[in-house]
């Protein structure tokens, strides 16, 4: 194991220990903040996979969260479908829709792709508002919860397990040949095609996989909050996810995840400052994009590692006797 890998492993172990001990250290309010942070972390990781690795700039992830949540919620509420089956159905629908969006957007790049996905998100949100008989419209749709307990602890550990599973699966994916092809397409589609990569297939796969993880997060989160409103898939929410991933570092799954957790906790901690906290985050986001394109957390970790390497030994090595 190299020094860098050892440091990463140690950091992950500490993070895992803190995450496991967290429910014992906080009240129910902060526990629910923790659950929300874990939910956003899964969505931010899925966005990082699509944008940071595959280079497909999409604003559609929260629409897929919404799709996963409403599919599972409506199936459970109206057809008494078991919740796990409903969540699977939501994931499948998100994968199919993601594939469809990817196919329609095959010739779109950069701002055009982003605008298309914004339009898709808004159309989906407006459908949810308009079809109030089924979706409950802006009044919300009550759906059964996953656990009938007073404490949120089961939800917390469930989301922690979901995040761990998501990161492991995505980590395996980005280290596989698929991950290599995603990055090649991000860097240069023409060169990737000339190198034999089936660009269309892998662009569609990236959309499908990212949409599936967003649908998974949405499905579980819907049954946690137990009341769904169309705003969950709004552009505002998507902007928040983008800010989380960019501040953390969109080209690293772990950095995007950490960014989501950090931003969610800071947003709650600074709640007393009302709208000014959003101004603060906007400024941080602008500075990140300008000065630390790989994200603030990635920059902080690199700087810390550099400092550790430069620090002279506190005690000079003894001469051999």
């Amino acid at each position, binding site marked *: 194991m190299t020094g860098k890998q050892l440091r990463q492993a140690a950091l992950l172990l500490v993070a895992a220990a803190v995450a496991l001990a967290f429910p014992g250290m906080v009240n129910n309010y902060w526990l629910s903040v923790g659950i929300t942070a874990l939910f956003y972390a899964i969505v931010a990781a899925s966005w990082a996979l699509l944008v940071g690795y595959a280079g497909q700039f999409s604003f559609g992830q929260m629409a897929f969260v919404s799709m996963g949540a409403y599919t599972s919620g409506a199936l459970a509420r109206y057809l008494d479908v078991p919740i796990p089956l409903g969540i699977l159905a939501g994931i499948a629908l998100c994968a199919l829709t993601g594939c469809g969006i990817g196919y329609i957007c095959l010739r779109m790049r950069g701002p055009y792709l982003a605008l298309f996905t914004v339009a898709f998100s808004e159309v989906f949100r407006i459908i949810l508002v308009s079809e109030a008989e089924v979706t409950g419209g802006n009044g919300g749709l009550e759906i059964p919860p996953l656990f009938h307990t007073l404490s949120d602890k089961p939800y917390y550990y469930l989301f922690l397990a979901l995040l761990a599973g998501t990161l492991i699966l995505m980590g395996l994916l980005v280290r596989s*040949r698929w991950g*290599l*092809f995603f*990055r*090649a397409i991000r*860097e*240069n589609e*023409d*060169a*990737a*095609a*000339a*190198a*034999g*990569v*089936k*660009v*269309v297939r892998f662009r569609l796969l990236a959309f499908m996989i990212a949409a599936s993880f967003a649908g998974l997060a949405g499905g579980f989160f819907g049954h946690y909050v137990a009341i769904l409103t169309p705003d969950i898939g709004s552009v505002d929410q998507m902007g928040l996810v983008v800010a989380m991933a960019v501040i953390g570092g969109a080209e690293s799954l772990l950095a995007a995840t950490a960014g989501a957790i950090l931003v969610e906790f800071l947003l709650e901690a600074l709640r007393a400052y009302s709208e000014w906290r959003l101004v603060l985050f906007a400024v941080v986001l602008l500075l990140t994009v300008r000065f630390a394109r790989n994200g603030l957390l990635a920059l902080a970790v690199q700087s810390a590692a550099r400092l550790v390497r430069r620090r002279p030994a506190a005690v000079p090595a003894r001469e051999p006797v």
Partner: protein
Amino acid sequence: MEPLIEARGLTKRFGGIVAVNGLDLAVHPGELVGLIGPNGSGKTTTINMMTGHLRPSAGEVYVRGTRADGSPPSRFAALKVGRTFQITQLFSRMTLMENMLVPGLARPHSHRAEATRQARLHLDFLGLAKLETLQARHLSGGQQKLLELGRALMLDPDILFLDEPFAGVNPFLRDEIIALIQKLHADGRTFVIVDHDIEAIQRLVNRLVVMALGRKIADGAVDDVSHDPEVLRAYAGV
């Protein structure tokens, strides 16, 4: 002998402009063909159509007798047709090894260990072996040209289209690239080389194809073509 790659009546229109007009071109195994012509004569458009990067408006492309026009570039790559680009196209923020592994692992039934071994062999051949963990964006212009050639070699291509391999390259490196191409040709690979560097092209190839205004105006041995009056008129205004 069946051509390795053949264009029949290849035409490309961009709106009202005809960039390539009814081009016939057959390249046989073992040939080293130079494709030259003034700016805007349709050389790169021809390469783009013969490697799947552009869909022809009319005409056909055959690879070893199999019709392939309109197929994506990945199919041409699978048919062992490799290429480099006029403006070097690398995966800039990926290491040299990763650049090489993309085509290596895109091949059907490929294995990472074998692809890595092949990549190291090619990087060594190109003099880039010590830089395999460096990101491609940190290479010099000439080294980037070499890496792009190496990446194309990872397809184990039967034919390689090189689009301006000497553009922006210093004379020393140009001679090195010529030597590399000659070695690869001696090993049995077929080349079509597009370049404005007539001197380099004439030293290198055994057949010259000249294009002007989207048409092929000459095709033959270097000595014959370079003294062709129509070529002199179109190319040098003589």
